[in-house]
């Protein structure tokens, strides 16, 4: 028994040592392979090693979420799917797996209906990721500039008229995509939502153990963080209710 433990530890030590030395791309390839072979725990440690190096992309979080899902760690799976979704909001697979993982959570919260225009804009914004919007903004800006040149220097009245119209349209696109790009970036950077990790946590009316219990949250539920006070944080759930839960009970997306 002790011998077995010793071997396990040396193995873990050896893999950890080799992990640190490996390139992230190699690690991901290895993890993908381990996942395919069904060794989810090993795949997770490889993916996490890459995340630990401060690197990220949507696929990495997606695969990590999948591996967590396979070992039935639903909160961690949801957390990683949410992260992947933030980085790549228009990916259908990410959305699918996120929705599926959410069906395994305990809490069923009535989502407050959103004003249709807001959800329309949000849907439009989620067509592309922050970076794609940034590139769209850049291209449309370049086009606006060249159209401006046409407008100023063309002798033909027709050309000038069209150039003006298209330039106005493109500058609108430029502004919108720049705003969307920054907006999406802020969502990722600000990290103002979180996933509950504690199996059960009761939301209190004040940031204090003595506060009155308002409602109970279970692992896997997404909450919006409003303000932290000490070891507590005020959170808002999807139906609009607010309460205070300890900081240790959730993980930021």
């Amino acid at each position: 028994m002790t011998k077995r433990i010793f071997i396990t530890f040396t193995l873990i030590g050896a893999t950890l040592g080799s992990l640190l030395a490996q390139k992230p791309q190699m690690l991901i390839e290895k993890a993908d392979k381990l996942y395919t072979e069904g060794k989810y725990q090993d795949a997770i440690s490889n993916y996490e090693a890459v995340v630990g190096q401060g690197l990220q992309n949507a696929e990495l979080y997606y695969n990590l979420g999948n591996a967590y899902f396979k070992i039935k760690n639903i909160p961690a799976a949801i957390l990683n799917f949410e992260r992947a979704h933030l980085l790549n909001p228009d990916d259908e697979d990410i959305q699918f797996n996120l929705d599926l993982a959410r069906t395994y959570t305990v809490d069923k919260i009535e989502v407050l209906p959103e004003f249709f225009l807001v959800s329309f804009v949000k849907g439009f914004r989620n067509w592309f990721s922050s970076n794609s919007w940034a590139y769209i903004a850049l291209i449309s800006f370049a086009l606006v500039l060249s159209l401006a040149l046409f407008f100023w220097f063309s002798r033909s009245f027709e050309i000038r008229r069209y150039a003006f119209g298209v330039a106005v349209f493109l500058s609108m696109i430029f502004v919108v995509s720049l705003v969307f790009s920054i907006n999406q970036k802020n969502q990722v950077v600000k990290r103002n939502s979180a996933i509950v990790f504690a199996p059960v946590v009761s939301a209190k009316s004040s940031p204090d153990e003595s506060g009155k219990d308002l409602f109970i949250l279970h692992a896997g539920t997404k909450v919006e963080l409003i303000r932290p006070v000490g070891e507590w944080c005020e959170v808002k759930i999807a139906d609009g209710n607010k309460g205070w839960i300890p900081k240790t009970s959730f993980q930021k997306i």
Partner: protein
Amino acid sequence: MIRKLLIIALVFISSVAVAQNAAIEAYAPNVVELGEQFRLTYTLTARPTSFNPPAIADFDVIAGPSTSSSTSIEMINGKVTQTQSYTYTYILEATKEGKFTIDAAEATINDDKIKSNSLSIEVVKGSTNTRQNNPQSTKQQINGAELPNDELFVTVETNKKTAYVGEPIEATIKIYTRVGIAGFEEAKFPTFDGFWSQEIATEQNISFQRTNINGKIYNVGVIRKYLLFPQQKDKLEIPPFELVVVYQARTSRSQSIFDEFFGGGFENYRKRLVSKPLAVNVKQLPNNAPESFIGAVGAYKIDASTDKTKLKTNEAVTVKLKISGTGNLKLIGTPKVEFPAGFELFDPKVSDNINTTANNISGAKTIEYIAIPRSAGTFEIPPVEFTYFDLKKESYVTLRSKAMPIEVLADSTVASGVMITGYNKEDVKFIGKDIRFIKTSHSKLRPINSFVVTSGVYVFIYIILIIAFLAFWYLYSKHREQMTDLSIVRTRKANKTAQKRLKEASIMLNQDNAEKFYEEIHKALWGYTADKLSIPISSLNSDRVKDELASRGVDGIDIQEFIRIIDECEFARFAPNREHSQMDALYEATYTLISKLEQTLGKAKSNLW
């Protein structure tokens, strides 16, 4: 006393009377007190020709061997069976403490040499009142109504204190007594909450065995035995067992000497006995259970087979899965058999064949899965997976049966001649729900919180674009300004230059220099148009000039005039002999044309951006 012994002897003898041919059995109590007299008996099933008892060194032989024989004849439905038994009885006395062995006795019956079992007897110091020939005699000292608790008690004992979920635990309810028991009343058996319990069949009558506890000899009887399978991870409490015992003890009333002599003077008393509560620590099974784990704990084998390998559509095929082994067989669910698509499944039929043995449950569970193939083809039922938790290895073991090929032939009776089109179209069946597979193509890894929109390069590209835009704008407008200036000057000077050339031409006309005259007229007209239209002379030709003039609103007649003059000049330059009057007319025409053009083009100039 004697009566009692006699009864015991009789009961004993009758119980061995049914023994098989030629056997010898030794019997003695396994625990005796120091100084106690007890019986050692050898019971044979037939009269021996010789009997060699072992040497008895550790005990004093007080009497014996005395022989007795009994014969019993049974007649059942006219069939007569006769059993005989011969008994050699010794009365021994224990003289020293310790554990002793009495070797086997040998006997010869019908020329067969047989050996008895050897006995081991423990001699203990015994209670305060030694030198009594029977531990039960202590009751004579006890006042019946006030029996101490350690004289008579019940226990619930388990063979282990910690167990995994699903690991069998043997629980025994025992009664320990040092007094005579007349009967039981009102037994309240524990409810084994959190366990699945299975009673093990015990003897109908409780048979007492002697045992030594802390130097005291008790008669121990097993009341009931259970096999418990813990169902949940916890510290599970087994509630106490309660029993009202009727026991015999000496009456507190005064008695006559005759009563005592005849073994009387005893009375029945009741006492409620409660066992101590007991807790079992139940451990959770390890977390890494494979998917095919359905609660089986123990040691199992599986065997899967189909009743046929070739069948027609709409005929039933049965897959028989037999799980055999020991463990919590009754608590195992049904493993999943993945039938190929197109098989209609029915509820599996489960039958158990289970034996409860002393310390576990063993047997087999047969699960029959009935399926009906609805489409023809060659199918394979994939291997059935079954996982159990092996208690010895403390790990999960996954068993896998063989894959079972099935060939399904089309059922000719149904399909013949009838073309079913779209009749039984099926919706796409969603059999399972699972997450989608991982992404195998990866985009570039970026450091966390690095975004294009706020990166320096991104902003820099904007700056470059603006700079390029401004630079282009500045340079182009500059160039344009220059170009405009130049053409304005040229346009303004066009008329003057033309007038100068015309004056030159009139001089040539007066000198009658025809060649020079035509040259000057030609130059004047070309130069004027070139300057006016801001076209370099090198790229001028009559077609282009025609188009340009027409686009600036010059009359068609004037253009024709222009072409006519140019043609005439060019023609005259190669055939210069012309009359003076002709030259004069040309001069006039040119002059008129230029002034006309000057009027039209001068007006058109304002339209120029």
